[in-house]
């Protein structure tokens, strides 16, 4: 027996304004019109206002002479001849410098504290918890102001500097010995390159052999030996071709050595300590996310604690840790823009601060600054998406 279903064959009759497709099209057209009108009125107002204020528009200012000085420059820059464009690059490089060093310090500190919070030592756990809770609940800006104004600016002046390991710490910054390579240092550099290439080759060879035969090679020891040991041996063999340029205390100033400005030191210390607290939480959550069964299963297979940690726990924890860790790195990079509050010449301070004030071209300057941070973020999230798709669990 068959059931006639002629009723279901006919499309339901609804008024056209209840048709989902019509509705969705209407909403979208409306939204576009509203957004378009907003953009149009913003642009026309901006053109009006700029014209009335006699502010030039366009990117012509890029090649004009800047005429202001920057206290820390990684590339050649002088107030008299350099352009706004060069000032931009100086600021960007300063941002990247503090971000890269900050990321390195924050990662080491953050991993140490994250692991400390899982320790079996009660006191260590409590100390790490106090650190994390205190640092995370106080605004970064306040911490930066504290480090800069209350700690570094309150240090003694140059003649009463704190001295340690040939370094001087005073209210003009941190002066450390600078390693200066002597003529024979080229051999060490060559050895380093050879070591890295050799280590990579060995790593791929060992991996391939393990895939084919199951035999393991002492990868860690060999790689460390090639990357660190080989240049060290060459360094000693070449007669240690490097000397330290110690800062010398003069009458009014310290000469020689590497001078780190108090602004740089305060920013670096501030963002590293702040981000480390967040990284430690990421690390803790990542390690806790590996279920206990994994460790127990490894033990029941007869694995020792150390290989269990290295082959079972850490790879699985890293899969959980790396995406939020990357976003912490991005946060650190973005937070380095707080440099403007303590006067470290980063991208925002140089470009959105001084260049904006001198040229008055707010739209162009802010747009360029945002574009820089946006590209850093988008490139990182692109890399993260690729990474995630590679390590994602393939479920059956």
């Amino acid at each position, binding site marked *: 027996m068959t059931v006639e279903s002629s009723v279901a064959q006919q499309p339901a009759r609804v008024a056209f304004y209840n048709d989902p497709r019509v509705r969705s099209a209407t909403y*979208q057209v409306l939204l576009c019109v509203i957004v378009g009108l907003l953009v149009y009125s913003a642009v026309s107002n901006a053109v009006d206002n700029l014209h009335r204020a006699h502010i030039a528009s366009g990117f012509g200012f890029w090649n004009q002479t800047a005429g202001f000085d920057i206290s820390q420059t990684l590339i050649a820059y002088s107030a008299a001849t350099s352009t706004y464009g060069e000032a931009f690059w100086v600021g960007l490089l300063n941002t990247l410098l503090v971000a890269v060093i900050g990321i390195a310090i924050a990662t080491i500190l953050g991993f140490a504290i994250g692991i400390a919070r899982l320790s079996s*030592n009660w006191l260590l756990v409590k100390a790490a918890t106090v650190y994390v809770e205190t640092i995370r609940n106080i605004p970064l*800006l*306040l911490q930066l102001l504290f480090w800069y104004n*209350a700690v570094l600016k309150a240090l003694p002046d140059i003649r009463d500097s704190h001295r340690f390991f040939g370094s001087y710490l005073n209210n003009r910054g941190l002066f450390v010995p600078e390693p200066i390579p002597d003529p024979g240092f080229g051999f060490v550099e060559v050895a380093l390159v050879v070591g890295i290439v050799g280590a990579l080759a060995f790593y791929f060879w060992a991996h391939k052999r393990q895939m084919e035969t199951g035999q393991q090679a002492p990868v860690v020891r060999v790689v460390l030996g090639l990357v660190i040991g080989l240049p060290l041996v060459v360094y000693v063999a070449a007669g240690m071709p490097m000397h330290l340029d110690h800062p010398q205390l003069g009458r009014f100033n310290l000469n020689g050595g590497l001078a780190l400005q108090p602004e740089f030191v305060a920013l670096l210390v501030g963002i590293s300590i702040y981000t480390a607290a967040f990284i430690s939480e990421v690390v803790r959550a990542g390690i806790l996310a590996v279920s206990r069964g994994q460790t127990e299963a490894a033990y029941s297979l007869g694995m020792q604690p150390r290989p269990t940690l290295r082959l079972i726990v850490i790879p699985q924890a890293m899969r959980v840790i790396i995406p939020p860790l990357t976003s912490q790195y991005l946060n650190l990079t973005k937070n380095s823009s*707080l440099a403007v509050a303590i006067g470290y010449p980063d991208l925002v301070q140089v470009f959105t601060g001084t260049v904006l004030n001198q040229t008055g071209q707010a739209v162009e300057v*802010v747009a360029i600054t945002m574009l820089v*941070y946006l590209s*850093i973020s988008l490139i990182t999230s692109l890399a993260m998406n690729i990474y995630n798709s590679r390590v994602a669990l393939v479920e059956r």
Partner: protein
Amino acid sequence: MTMSEGQLAIDDIRYLQREAIAPQPPPASIVGPWAWIRANLLSSPFNIAMTIIIVLLILWIVPELLKFLVFDAAWTGQNREACIYTAQHPDVGACWPFIADRWSYFVYGSYPIPERWRVNVFFLMLAIGIVWLLWLNAPRRDIGAVYFFIVMPVCSFILLNGGFGLLYRVDTSLWGGILVTIVVASVGIVVSLPLGILLALGRRSRMPMVKTLSVMFIEFVRGVPLITVLFMASVMLPLFVPDEYSPDKLLRALIGIALFASAYMAEVVRAGLAAIPKGQFEGAMAVGLGYRQMMQLIILPQALKITIPNIVNTYIGMFKDTTLVFIVGLFDLVKTIEVARIDPQWAAPTTSTTGYVVAAAFYFVFCYGMSRYARATEARLSKADKR
């Protein structure tokens, strides 16, 4: 030999113990304070070393802190004389009279003194709203939500700003201190949640234009630092509107903060929406609910419930971020401290540190309170899910 012949009554055996022996106390190596110390502080050479280092650290930091905050601190005085080095007082700790003297400036900024009751009423209204919303057993929390998101903002604006022929008008450039911090934070809180929900729904929408615009907004805002958003709000916004409608400084910063927080809120809400099983959507559609009803009655209540801890965490981040308005020239708490600490009347070596300690304590109390609340709510919600 049968059993009955050879069986001896238990009572006849003299050497058997009749009563149970009282249990011996467990060995000292398992329980007791010494065992606890051994297990938790001294279990390995590494742990012994860590314990020693931390004990030394505590012995170094805690007395220094107490000395700075209490024993060496200046408690009374009228000006910087109280807080500078003298021969009989070579170590100077915190300069508390500075805080006492400037406290009303830290709270109200330059708000006119006879009008400051209005600020107090605003703080009270805000406190009522927060308690009503956050206390999960409070009566009629639906009215609380209307109060918090509609009634209170309107009343607060009239109260603080004045005008409308009712109250003497106070220009926003006079607002300052904790008042500005709280205003910026609460506007961020009140605006970012509804806007964030809209953006999150937009991002999950099946309409391509709505989705594209939401994604573009969210990713753009999340990709740039707050400080550039604030710069954009403070220098570009006046260009984008006709001259006569140019918003004042506070409003510009509020717009910047609110938009910034909305983008982050949108991602938090989206995570909550993603955690709702598909069956809930299908069930809602199967009983014939439209999109709005489905979201309002079925999906959002569940999604927001599981998102509460993350929403509060976003609020904590935003509360800390309000300090950045000082860079675009608003007088928030940090700025008032920056101004007061370089005032020659109180110029002393420890004035800055004292000011920062007070500000840090203020932010810590609020942020830590919020994070405890988030954790307690999380625990409570996870209890509800257990069967």
